[in-house]
């Protein structure tokens, strides 16, 4: 196993003090499904948004510590954020197709890079949609609006939109919370396929999903990392009382 992202003593606070992170240290293992789970408000989304610097859009008052990605601290002001976000893609909890066609949704990031070669774009669209197991369902609807797809299809469209940029990491923030069980299963299956090439960070939308998918997992509670373990360790044999309570359903 090799560590791709290493979060060191990260403390982050929003100006209004709502959700924040306290002294988080955690490693993200390459080519694995890294699961961050815990009750909502625990700081998981904040951590994801710190890794790709999406928090730049929010009202953050304090950031301390480091997030090393390929040996470079992404919190450093000199980091090329655009470059970073292309390498660390993100999928959100609600399927959020841009108000564009299916095709344009997939190549949105590429267009922003200045890629306009039609045959290159065509290839990437097919490739990305196939990786997201969506091609067979939409190959004849590429010029329809992204919003005309079903919820599950929309979410896979959002995933292929990230994959089209050929990222090193894909972060998914409760990607199946708005989906039916069949769509959820498709996405979970896809993640297992993807991890051979791309590092996956997943915030699952419930404990069962965490247990099903995790190669490594961290349990977050109120902005702190309570416990971290490889494999299904946290679910089978939690060490901390708080983890135990959550995993056994005593709170959540």
């Amino acid at each position, binding site marked *: 196993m090799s560590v791709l992202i290493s979060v060191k003593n990260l403390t982050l606070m929003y100006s209004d003090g709502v959700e924040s992170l306290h002294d988080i240290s955690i490693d993200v293992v390459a080519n694995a499904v890294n699961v961050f789970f815990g009750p909502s408000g625990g700081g998981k989304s904040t951590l994801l948004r710190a890794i*790709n610097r*999406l928090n730049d*859009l929010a009202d953050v008052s304090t950031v301390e510590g480091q997030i090393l990605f390929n040996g470079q601290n992404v919190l450093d002001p000199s980091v090329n954020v*655009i*470059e970073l*976000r*292309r390498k660390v*893609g*993100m999928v*959100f909890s*609600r399927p*959020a197709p*841009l*108000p564009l066609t299916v095709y344009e949704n997939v190549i*949105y*990031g590429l*267009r*922003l*890079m200045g890629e306009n070669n039609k045959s290159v774009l065509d290839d990437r669209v097919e490739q990305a949609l196939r990786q997201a197991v969506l091609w067979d369902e939409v190959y004849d609807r590429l010029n329809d*609006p992204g*919003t005309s797809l079903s919820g599950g299809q929309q979410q896979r469209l*959002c995933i292929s*939109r*990230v994959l089209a*940029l050929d990222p090193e990491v894909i972060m998914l923030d409760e990607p199946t919370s708005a989906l039916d069980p069949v769509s959820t299963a498709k996405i979970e299956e896809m993640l297992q396929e993807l991890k051979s090439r791309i590092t996956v960070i997943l915030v699952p939308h419930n404990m069962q999903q965490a247990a099903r998918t995790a190669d490594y997992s961290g349990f977050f509670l109120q902005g702190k990392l309570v416990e971290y373990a490889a494999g299904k360790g946290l679910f089978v044999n939690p060490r901390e009382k708080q983890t135990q309570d959550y995993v056994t359903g005593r709170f959540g």
Partner: protein
Amino acid sequence: MDNSNYAQVSKRKAIVGVNLLRLITFITAVPVIGVIVYIIVRGAPALSWEFLTAMPRDGMRAGGIMPAIVGTFYLAIGTAIFSVPLGVAAGIYIAEYASDNRLTRLVRIAIINLAGIPSVVYGLFGLGLFVLFLNFGTSILAASLTLSIMTLPVIISTTEEALRQVPNSFRVVSTSLGGTRWQTVKNITLPQAMPGVVTGIILGLERAVGETAPIMFTGASFFLPMLPQSPMDATMALPYHIFVISTSVPGMPVQIQYGTVLVLLVFVLGMNVIATVIRNRARARRQW
């Protein structure tokens, strides 16, 4: 007074009150509709091809109002040239770029003030800055610039409003895919807000087209024997022409007055209708 009696009294009060409100609304609305209908009835007989395309004759008591129509077009175009790019860019700045600090608050206060300054004060300002200080003279240029600054707050506010209605998730997604702020505006938020922006532009220009006071000392002319040849010439304009023929021309035929008012109304209300149609169609087609 026992309870049921009390309830009855308050019920009667409510019925009277509601009917009073109905009456008030009725008194507000009916004259508006009545007046529009009246202007159409009185003005329509004046409308003819000659009225719309000929120069005025006989001290404006006969002939057409073509130079006033053309002048109003020129002023509308001149105003749009200056106010649209500036206003839309300023709206983008406030909605997409500005952070909440003292400078932004100052910008907001400035916009609120621009919106509230009386139109005749704009006229004075245009006279002082454009006509005299910059030496543009009473000209289409000076009048258009004056009207532009007056129109600016309308365009800025509606652009801002339209951009704010675009869901924030689009911005977050675009940014997460490596979009810069401008790329996000250009590719996503501005296209999505476009119908609202266009509506705002039309409403702003509608106001400019109908204004008299700001152009009285900056570019409008009582009577001109020929059409303006360049932006440095003064021009006739519909609103000022209406003012002139209803106050300063003795023996003015009423039919021509109503006809001229009708033409201006068609312009102004036509723009209003176009703006409404654009807004409603966009709302129906919107995917979010």
